[in-house]
């Protein structure tokens, strides 16, 4: 078979070759960045889905993050800052996760065959993780760059126009699936990776149940939200580009466009 015995390595007691501390740091960084992104993804979905309550609700959330209710006027740059941070963490996470990807044809086929033969859920989930992670290399930056340079265009009509008239909905649809599946599996994996369970079997059963529950919940929420934006975007297609003015919110400000 293809398995050579493990190669000999320098003596653990050799004073000349202390192992690098970096594998430990990289492992922590990969898990940490994943945790941050996973929690961000859920929070983000919460904010985005306020469109299901009402356009005004979403408008309020969007202005809130621009500091409108603190400073009395919106600073979209604040959103750009957060986007830049998320972007940076995503790049870091992608770079670190890349180490775990199968590296060549042999590794892909070996893993594929192994997963097919074993019939083991957690092993198959890892393949899903690789596939969705790979998809996000291409999908996430498109969305993030858009948010980075046009943070002021987050609003009921603004977002809906981007989704429908701007032709973003197919990207958002695939991104939504990839993000929710990847994040759900990733957070589950983090738990089994770091937490020492007394009874791993039942802990995992419960975690998996929770994980799928969360994934289904956020996927449904995401799909409904996306549908709401599509609907809004269709209705608003004639006036695409027009900024939203809240109807029911107290003290509605005059929208400022960034110069």
């Amino acid at each position: 078979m293809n398995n050579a015995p493990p190669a000999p390595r320098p003596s653990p007691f050799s004073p000349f070759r202390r192992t690098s501390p970096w594998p430990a740091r990289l492992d922590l960084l990969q898990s940490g960045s994943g945790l941050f992104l996973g929690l961000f993804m859920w929070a983000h979905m919460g904010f985005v889905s306020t469109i299901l309550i009402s356009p005004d609700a979403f408008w309020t959330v969007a202005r809130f993050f621009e500091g409108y209710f603190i400073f009395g006027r919106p600073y979209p740059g604040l959103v750009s800052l957060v986007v830049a941070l998320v972007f940076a963490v995503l790049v870091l996470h992608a770079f670190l996760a890349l180490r775990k990807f199968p590296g060549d044809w042999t590794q892909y086929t070996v893993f594929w065959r192994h997963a097919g033969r074993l019939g083991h859920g957690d092993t198959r989930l890892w393949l899903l993780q690789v596939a969705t992670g790979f998809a996000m290399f291409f999908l996430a930056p498109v969305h993030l760059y858009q948010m980075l340079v046009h943070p002021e265009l987050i609003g009921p009509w603004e977002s809906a126009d981007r989704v429908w008239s701007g032709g973003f909905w197919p990207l958002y649809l695939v991104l939504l699936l990839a993000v929710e599946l990847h994040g759900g599996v990733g957070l589950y994996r983090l738990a089994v990776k770091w937490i020492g369970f007394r009874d791993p079997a039942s802990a995992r059963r419960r975690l998996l149940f929770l994980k799928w529950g969360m994934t289904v919940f956020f996927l449904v929420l995401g799909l409904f939200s996306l549908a709401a934006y599509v609907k809004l975007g269709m209705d608003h297609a004639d006036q695409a580009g027009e900024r939203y003015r809240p109807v029911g919110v107290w003290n509605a400000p005059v929208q400022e466009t960034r110069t």
Partner: protein
Amino acid sequence: MGRRLTLTVFRHNPREASSRPGTRDYVLDETPGMTLFVALGRIRDEQDPGLNFDFVCRAGVCGSCAMLINGRPGLACRTLTAALPERISLFPLPGFELIGDLSVNTGKWMRAMSERLRAWLHDAGDADPDRLEAPMEPATAEAIYELERCIECGCCVAGCGTAQMRPDFVGAVGLNKIARFHLDPRDVRSDADFYEVVGDDSGVFGCMSLLGCQDVCPKGLSLQTQIAWLRRTLARQGW
């Protein structure tokens, strides 16, 4: 009337130039309480004296009879045919050197792994056979004994996607050994010393927590618990 089983068995002798890897079907009648060990023994006695497979203890103690049973690593001597469908496929454990048919050289792999990880007790070097051994807390002794139950069957290596993809990965069996010596108060090695042998991507940080190991280990060792604990302990060595 019992069932009639069809066993599809991998056949190949790598030392014979003319031998080509393939499978052969054997049909036999199931008997009450039949294990795969019994089934394979009958095939060798009655149908194919040339069939290679390993057994020593027939009781799940020696770890030599591990093989892929319908795709899943397991001990043949501990697997009742009654728990399996009528068609059973048997393949050698992947990831180990093939000796012939169902027989693989797990011993060679385990020895190389143990030497590489220095998986033996490193005491202070002052052992004295005439002195009474220092007593050990019963709880500690029990915890060590729990991890010592590993029989080095290799199922966890065959069930691990990481080990299959990356041949230099030490597998759950190796990480479990490190956890075992870490527990032992007689072992003088520090966390830094253990980090030295498993603190990289061929050791604990290579494990992707697929938990195939945990799910196939025939001794039911809680490998997830051990690996997560080792990961937390050794991650501190990054600072």
